[in-house]
């Protein structure tokens, strides 16, 4: 295992310490890194809290700040955070208008956030994201995973919260954005959880995993390495077909790197994906390219497509100031 770390046991706290120090102008840690919160709260605003296992940086802590999250709870690597983290975060950032939890659809995350909601005395609602089309949403699975589309939900709902939206309307908006969002991922390599010390799976030099999530789990199918165009063709087809009746609007195309994918390759994938969307007659209104929802040191990427209605487009463009996303201010 080759990583820039001090010891397996301190990876998370060392990294969070660096993160909080590097962005001390906008955020601050709470309770021994139980959570990371926005430095300046906006009284009367619904508090947005997300969280999940670590190893997906900059998600979620890198999305804390003006126009997005009020707090993020980092769990252990690939392990959902615990209810006490969420309760502590809620207590710290709830200014009276209630708390909206944004939760990726993994049983661990959902159960822990559920327990926190049950224990909480304040008013709490949640949005569950489940944008991954690689997983069938059927009786025989736990349902689709929440992956990179979660960032889109957090951005748009975050902007609406900043504008003063109430808890119920934000929850509804979050569900609308989630419903308009689909993702799919491909991995070229596995990733290495520090505590395990070796890659999660072995994969040949000419193979890739189609339909991976963001936890180093194997994907749906192992296939021969294909060209960027072929990969984009399959992923965009899966995404577009999954929509059934297409929502209104042009789309946001979000090409997300998994942690070890150079910008050069991500932009190349953007080019391939954009051409595929065009073939399907879908127009791109906004673009985002970068490693935002990662899987430690995995090489590969995901494509996310969100149909933006007018309100969503406006909220996407609204000012945001977080460690990872910043514009308009």
């Amino acid at each position: 295992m080759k990583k820039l770390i001090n010891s397996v046991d301190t990876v998370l706290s060392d990294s969070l310490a660096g993160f909080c120090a590097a962005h001390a102008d906008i955020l601050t840690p709470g309770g021994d890194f139980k959570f990371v919160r926005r430095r300046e709260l906006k009284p009367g605003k619904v508090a947005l809290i997300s969280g999940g296992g670590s190893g997906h940086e900059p998600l979620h802590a890198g999305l804390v700040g003006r126009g997005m999250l009020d707090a993020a709870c980092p769990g252990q690597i690939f392990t959902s955070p615990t209810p006490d983290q969420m309760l502590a975060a809620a207590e710290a950032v709830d200014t009276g208008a209630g708390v909206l939890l944004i939760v990726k659809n993994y049983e661990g995350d959902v159960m822990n956030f559920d327990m926190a909601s049950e224990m909480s005395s304040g008013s709490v609602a949640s949005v569950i994201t489940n944008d991954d089309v690689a997983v069938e949403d059927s009786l025989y699975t736990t349902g689709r995973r929440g992956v990179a589309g979660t960032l889109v939900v957090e951005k748009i709902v975050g902007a609406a919260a900043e504008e003063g939206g109430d808890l119920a309307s934000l929850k509804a908006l979050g569900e609308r954005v989630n419903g308009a969002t689909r993702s799919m991922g491909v991995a070229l390599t596995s990733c290495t959880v520090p505590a395990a010390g070796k890659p999660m799976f072995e994969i040949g030099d000419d193979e890739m995993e189609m339909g991976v999530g963001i936890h180093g789990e194997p994907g749906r199918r192992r296939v021969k390495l294909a060209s960027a165009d072929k990969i984009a063709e399959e992923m965009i087809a899966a995404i577009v077909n999954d929509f059934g009746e297409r929502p209104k609007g042009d789309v946001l195309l979000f090409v997300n790197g998994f942690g070890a994918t150079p910008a050069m390759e991500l932009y190349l994938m953007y080019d391939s994906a954009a051409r595929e969307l065009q073939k399907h007659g879908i127009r791109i209104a906004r673009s985002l390219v970068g490693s935002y929802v990662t899987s430690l040191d995995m090489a590969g990427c995901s494509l996310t497509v969100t149909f933006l209605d007018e309100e969503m487009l406006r909220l996407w463009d609204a000012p945001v100031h977080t460690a990872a996303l910043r514009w308009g201010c």
Partner: protein
Amino acid sequence: MTEAGNTRTRRLIEAVAATIIEHTGELTELDSAIGDGDHGQNMKRGMTAILDDLDAIAAKPLPEALKAAGTQLVMKVGGASGPLYGTLFMALGKEIAPDPTRDDLTHAFAAAIEAVKVRGKSDAGQKTMLDVLVPVCEALRNGGSAREIDEAAEKARDATRDMQAQKGRASFLRERSIGHIDPGARSSQLMIAAVIDVLGEGA
């Protein structure tokens, strides 16, 4: 509570914690194959937290001790196993008598399993810890000996190998989940074996 009860609780906790910590690597391996490779560390973290609090926990009556252990798991483990095992122990504590008969134990265990099913929106047959817990409860109810219960747990654990996961991360893999033992089934079986070991000593 009696001095004996206190000692027994302590020995139970120590035995369960020891076996989990000892098998951290194996649990992680199993979870790497069809999950996300953290089950070993998760369980170890939980058990370490319980051990850190051992004096306080072991001093409590059995029901309170179980609830306290469950709370530690909920607050320290995270992931799927934290809420699930936490719920199991907390519900056990809620249902069990301070000095339980076998019937009491069977009843409480069954109730705790129901609580896990509710929390996990899951049931036996889906390649999870429930596929060990449910048959073990059955063997308990049917009057099986310590040895028979032990064997039922091992058989049930091995039987998860051929199942296709319908809950937990392994379900994302669909048919690729077949051929691997479920990590939660293994950790459940390990804990049950440890408990039987300790209770067997005293019997």
